[in-house]
């Protein structure tokens, strides 16, 4: 399992930083992964940011999975196995939380430039490309191909599924559960988005 913290057969912990800009569906992704983890009998702790910072600013969630109940609701620095970023600059913001030895960065490539001083996007992507373990993906394009650009967040779950210590079927079930009340069509689009992400080769 690449990137996972398998300390021994008995004990496992896996910390994920989820980040982006308000309105990108980060909370849904957190719910999908958390439900899949619980289906496997793992303990889960998840932390979100509400309130003022939701207004067009940075959005951040910490998701901690483990055979033991994770203690802190927020991830200590240098210990995340995965950064799952819906926006490239936001992914870089949380690099200090990524494990230098084993952490992987998965990021969408499309910048959200709602600030006047957004850095040069090529430099931002180059910064991610220079990381030891990374996947950069045009999640919007794959989501559009799957049928709805709003499924970009689930494309990223698909990419992450290759790294997460979770069974593919449990992630798919969680996606089915989450979108069930929005209709069969949306379930199918999101499952397709998941597949496109899972099969994506950078």
């Amino acid at each position, binding site marked *: 399992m690449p990137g996972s913290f398998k300390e021994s057969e008995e004990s496992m912990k896996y910390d994920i930083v989820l980040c982006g800009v308000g309105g990108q569906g980060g909370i849904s992704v957190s719910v999908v992964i958390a439900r899949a983890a619980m289906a496997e009998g793992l303990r889960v702790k998840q932390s979100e940011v509400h309130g003022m910072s939701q207004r067009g600013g940075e959005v951040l969630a910490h998701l901690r999975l483990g055979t033991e109940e994770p203690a802190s609701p927020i991830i200590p620095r*240098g210990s995340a196995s995965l950064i799952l970023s819906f926006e490239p600059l936001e992914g870089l913001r949380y690099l200090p939380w990524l494990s230098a030895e084993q952490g992987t960065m998965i990021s969408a490539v499309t910048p959200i430039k709602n600030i006047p001083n957004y850095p040069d996007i090529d430099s931002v992507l180059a910064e991610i490309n220079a990381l030891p373990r990374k996947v950069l993906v045009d999640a919007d394009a794959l989501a559009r191909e799957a049928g709805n650009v709003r499924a970009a967040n689930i494309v990223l779950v698909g990419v992450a599924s290759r790294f997460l210590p979770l069974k593919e079927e449990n992630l798919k079930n969680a996606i089915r559960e989450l979108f069930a009340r929005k209709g069969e069509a949306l379930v199918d689009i999101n499952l397709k988005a998941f597949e496109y992400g899972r099969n994506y080769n950078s």
Partner: protein
Amino acid sequence: MAQETLMGDEAIAYAAVHAGLSGAFAYPGTPSTEIMETLQELAAKIPQDSPNRFVAQWCTNEKTAYESALGASFAGRRAMVSMKHVGLNVAMDPFVNSGLVNINGGLVVVVADDPGMHSSQDEQDSRLLADFARIPCFEPATQQEAYDMTYEAFDYSEKHHCPVLIRITTRLAHSRSIVDIRDQKSQNLIKKPEGMDWILMPAVARRRWKEVIARQSMLSEESNAVKWNLLSKGSKALGVITTGLALQYYKENLADYRAAKGSDPMHLHIGFFPMPTELIRSLYETCDEILVIEDGYPYVEHLLRGIVPGKPVHGKEDGTIPYDGELNADIVRKALGLLENKGLMVKNISLVGRPPQLCQGCPHADSYTALKEALKGYMLYAVTSDIGCYTLGALPPYSAIETTVDMGASVGMARGAAEVGLEPVVAVIGDSTFYHSGLTNLLDAVSHKTNMKVLILDNSTTGMTGAQPTILPSSQLEPILKGCGIDPAHIRILRAHKMDNEKNVAVIKEELAYRGPSVIVMVRECLEALKKARKA
């Protein structure tokens, strides 16, 4: 046993319902808002004819919410009031004095503090206010404890006839974990208190105060034996005291500490106040050095350090832990003398911040554009403002407001500035904040015919906290303003839209030229509220 995955706020709401809650009251405020939202969701699921039905209401402000809860307790039923930390300042009068009455139905006061000021204007620590009111305070470390403490707090309140404060912080409020759920209790029947213990006229209050002092001393004794306060053995070299959520940051580092130092420190965890003085003394006397880890003020640490020199006590006051900001596992790691964890660093670009901003197309933006244009040409003027999304008007490109202090202060401060000669003055306030605490200031302005303008941004919602409905609809605002005594010729209702900008600028200019109290209402619905309504 049933389980649910719950945020701290949700766990508290579930526990209150399961403990037999009859009435819950609140005003929205991050990070406490989701308590009432969850209560309302749970209430909607209970059948009409069920004996478990309860009331869950948003109120005008924290003081009115608190007094409603107090009335429910007077009636003998279990009541909860929830608010953010600064909301307790608004409710301070009923809060402190409810400590003196002989609480009847269990009264639980949930206060969500915001260390790090994620969405607040200060870092005040509500544990000190529980102490000030001489009432007990629970400080949960996990979502499970938030549930269990709330569930038991109602019994505790009825047993000791006092309000019980539950102090949580943003991080606990907004993080989730799996919570074991307990049995549903039935609600109390209506039963009024006997005697005169709820009439706080001086003769009664003097007697009650003596009883409160005796109660607090008894609770302090009991604090040494409650299950929430636990002293565990360990090395004498270091004694660690944690309170509430700080326990989790300590636990996060404990395995590494053991590996580095060979043993665990002696440890006291405090989840219940008043302070367990015997347990604290026992740890202090045994250990060579003490480290106190708590999120918020150095409350336990300050007490322990005292004035007279003693053993080394480490914490916020000696700089071992930063005095300000939110606690986390990395800070605790450093305080325990462990090597810093390092992740990766960005090398070649600047990580510019992405400050919060008004939504694209927000009506507040159009109101600010009109206001700024109308003020052009004045050499001297002032724009006071308030708490809400429109506080973001302080930032570019608007840079339109000059003050944000507390709920309703825009109107009072504009009045004071005008009374001492600063003219023109405009107070910018949202409709929800106006109802909360702006209204009484407007009465002062009418009474004294103060030359000030109030710009009410009426979007029919409490936007910043996730679009809760305001206490009264927009249609009620104009009659209220008239009823307050504002001259109807100087109540101007405008549509907050850029298409109306020219007209809006002209009207604001007219009112700026008028030397008396006037109110301009800028009306357009919040985009978030529209989105939420469409989803529902």
